[in-house]
């Protein structure tokens, strides 16, 4: 797919280096602060039993949730893509929408229902329901693209259904599953709001507590440990083959899919889907509606729903635009000119996914106040830049999948016809990668709509977003007032996640490169 171009990609490389330079700002900030606190001091702060207990909490949660997401996401995708499940096109959308519900709304919904949803078990439940779509989306896309003929061959050679599923189907989806798991693990490392509501201390919640104490050296030290953890996750994913290439299994015509008949398994499978949607979608929406009617005296006025929704939409659209624009050169560079340096640059950008929003926000505050004469401080562009940095990897995986899919030969034809590089980019390459750009745009938009922690720090004075307003009310136990904001967040986010679901649903069956989370 990705042929090495004879031309040296100077412009692409320069643009990518610029993007990567922006993306490592948070890391530079952490190192600067840690250096200021003194290496031995930082070491002393890290080398404590508190760190060990946080590490234990964070690691076991990451393992359990990632495993559960892998199972749920893969099974849900298999059912939709490979079986004769009734109502497939509806389920295909319904199982994606939960990604649009902020994790802190899911935890609010569940924890306000029952005191059982607390601590570790609460965190496992809530996070699994909130992020399994990150596995579902790429796995569904890759099952759609893989050749079902292999399953039939395996069956005809006498392999049992179960064996075929494990050997062939999972084999085909392996990289997509690993890619999805990588995103899940990184997102959990950086999660804050849900764990705060559930009372489950992890590295990130402790980092927040520490940033709320004037001396930030401990917060920076802990953040560096978090960076190391995410390096371990990235290395683990690479070692298990997630970083490899997808090989084409059938360059010729692909067999038309014969869906596996569910038969007697149909009722329990349907019940499973219903249960998943009820838990991931029904409970947060249901409890929000409940609290609107059951809420108590309204002590806060705050920003109106309309103005908060406008701010949210504006910032999120800006971020989606900037992040996908930033992702283009990096995706083109890595897909068209693979090489160690370029792959290294790309992998570096994944680190930001595990950085808590507060670290990204404080880094930008720090650099603007220290080195830019406070230019842009507490303005919308800086907030948009923060979102773009935080969600850049999501844009990248989508754009890159499309770039890898699009044929280089069309660009070469354009070149041979004397079209210059830039017009070729605009007239040939961009239309080819448009689906990935659109998907990346939607994913970043969704994530920005639900972003809370960086927003609290960088938002322009007097402005409110849906997330900050929900948080203010929820923190104040004003559930009745918080609930409408949760519903509007879900409504604003539902449209792009519907688009996203349809995007993956309509991908052509043949020649499909993997969706988000998978590097080819």
């Amino acid at each position, binding site marked *: 797919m990705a042929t090495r171009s004879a031309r040296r990609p100077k412009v692409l490389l320069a643009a990518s280096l610029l993007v990567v330079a922006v993306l490592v700002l948070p890391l530079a900030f952490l190192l600067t602060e840690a250096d200021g606190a003194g290496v031995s001091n930082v070491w002393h*702060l890290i080398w*404590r*039993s*508190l760190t060990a207990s946080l590490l234990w909490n964070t690691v076991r949660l990451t393992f359990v949730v990632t495993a559960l997401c892998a199972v749920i996401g893969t099974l849900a995708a298999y059912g939709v893509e490979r079986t004769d499940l009734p109502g497939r096109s509806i389920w295909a959308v319904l199982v994606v929408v939960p990604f649009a519900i902020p994790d802190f709304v899911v935890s609010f919904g569940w924890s306000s229902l029952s*005191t059982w949803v*607390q*601590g570790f078990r609460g965190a496992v439940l809530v996070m699994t329901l909130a992020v399994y779509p990150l596995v579902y989306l790429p796995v569904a896309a890759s099952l759609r693209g893989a050749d079902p003929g292999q399953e039939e061959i395996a069956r005809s050679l006498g392999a049992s259904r179960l064996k075929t599923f494990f050997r062939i189907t999972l084999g085909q989806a392996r990289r997509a599953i690993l890619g999805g798991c990588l995103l899940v693990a990184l997102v959990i490392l950086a999660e804050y709001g849900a764990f*705060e509501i559930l*009372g489950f*201390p992890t590295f990130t*919640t402790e980092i*927040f*507590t*520490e*940033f*709320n*104490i*004037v*001396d*930030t050296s*401990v917060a920076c030290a802990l953040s560096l440990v978090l960076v190391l953890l995410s390096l371990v996750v990235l290395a683990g994913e690479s070692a298990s083959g997630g970083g490899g290439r997808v090989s084409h299994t059938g360059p010729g015509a692909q067999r038309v899919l014969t869906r596996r008949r569910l038969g007697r398994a149909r009722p329990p499978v349907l019940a499973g889907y219903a249960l998943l949607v009820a838990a991931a979608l029904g409970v947060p929406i249901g409890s929000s509606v409940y609290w609107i009617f059951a*809420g*108590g*005296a309204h*002590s*806060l*006025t*705050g920003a109106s729903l309309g103005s908060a929704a406008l701010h949210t939409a504006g910032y999120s659209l800006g971020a989606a635009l900037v992040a996908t624009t930033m992702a283009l050169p990096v995706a083109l560079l890595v897909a068209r000119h693979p090489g160690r340096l370029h792959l290294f640059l790309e992998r570096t950008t994944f680190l930001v996914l595990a950085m808590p929003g507060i670290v990204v926000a404080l880094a930008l*505050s*720090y650099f603007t*106040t*220290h080195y830019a*004469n*406070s230019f842009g*401080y*507490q303005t919308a562009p800086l907030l948009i830049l923060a979102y773009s940095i935080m969600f850049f990897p999501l844009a990248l995986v989508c754009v890159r999948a499309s770039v890898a899919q699009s044929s280089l030969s069309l660009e070469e034809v354009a070149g041979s016809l004397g079209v210059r590089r830039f017009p070729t980019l605009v007239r040939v390459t961009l239309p080819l990668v448009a689906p990935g750009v659109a998907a990346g745009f939607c994913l970043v938009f969704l994530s920005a709509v639900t972003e809370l922690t960086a927003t*609290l*720090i960088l938002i322009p*004075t*007097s402005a409110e977003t849906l997330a900050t307003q929900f948080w*203010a009310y929820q*923190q*104040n*136990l*004003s*559930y*009745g007032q918080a609930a409408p904001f949760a519903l509007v967040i879900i409504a604003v986010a539902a449209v792009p996640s519907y688009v996203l679901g349809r995007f993956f649903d309509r991908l052509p069956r043949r020649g499909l490169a993997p969706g988000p989370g998978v590097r080819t």
Partner: protein
Amino acid sequence: MTITLYNGQHVQTTEALVAAFEKATGIHVAVRNDDEDVFDAEIVAEGPRSPADVVFTENSPALEYLQARGLLAPVDRATLGHTPTRFDSPQGDWVGVSARVSVLIYNPSLIKKSALPTHVLELADPRYRGELALAAGETDFQPIVTSVLRTYGRDAALKWLNGVKANAGSHVYPDNETISEVVNRGIVAFGVVNQYYWYRMRAEIGASDMHSRIAYFAPRDPGYVLDISGAGILRSSRHKAASQRFLAFLVSAKGQEIIAHSISFEYPIASGVTTVQPETPFDELRPNPIDVGELGTGSLAVTLLRDVQLL
């Protein structure tokens, strides 16, 4: 004319005050909400270019911290005159606006009132293992730590904090609102919060859903601490006159009446105004005599909390 307010106080308290001030003076107040310690860190980082004119905090240590770094400008003497001297900065760079007091919140279905501790040191008693909810990172907890430290010395305070930590176990929460909620829902037996969280929770969720009560420490116990909320003007402010008017308004009879009627349930402390809310009258409280100067910047408490690894 617009002044920028960094508001570390609860949004309810500030909203009503700002609205009345804007109406009375025509001066617009741009409000930024966050935790007081976040603002402290931001103001230090922003230096002379800070966009903030006024900083309004829940607790005195956050103001003492800024004052110690020379970041606050002196408050008009007339404004200071409205609040009893012991509730103002000893140096005169910030003014006390309202007060709260630390209490025990407990769930009677899990622990009887008679079984509750009455002295702060008892919080570390092993018989409360697993029954105590704690918000170690909450700025409201630090004054209690400072108070114990001043009364009993560092060694005893360390021993006490270790006992508190053991009793809390996994029941460590981010803030007082969460403590109030988990105690009310019966997840943990009791915790230490400021009194207004309980009243505010009752106002929000309704009396029928209240399954918790509050109790006081013994009179003058080191755990029975008055927390002063206050406001100061940044030295770097370019709107000092308007900012002084805002501070004057906060402690005026009109501003204090707003606090007295607010369902934020804080105690007004200036201009002779008293609360109209159905809670223990301010002059019937019997807190420990520790004052804002002795509470300081809270850094000693933070060091101690780090030593026992609660932070």
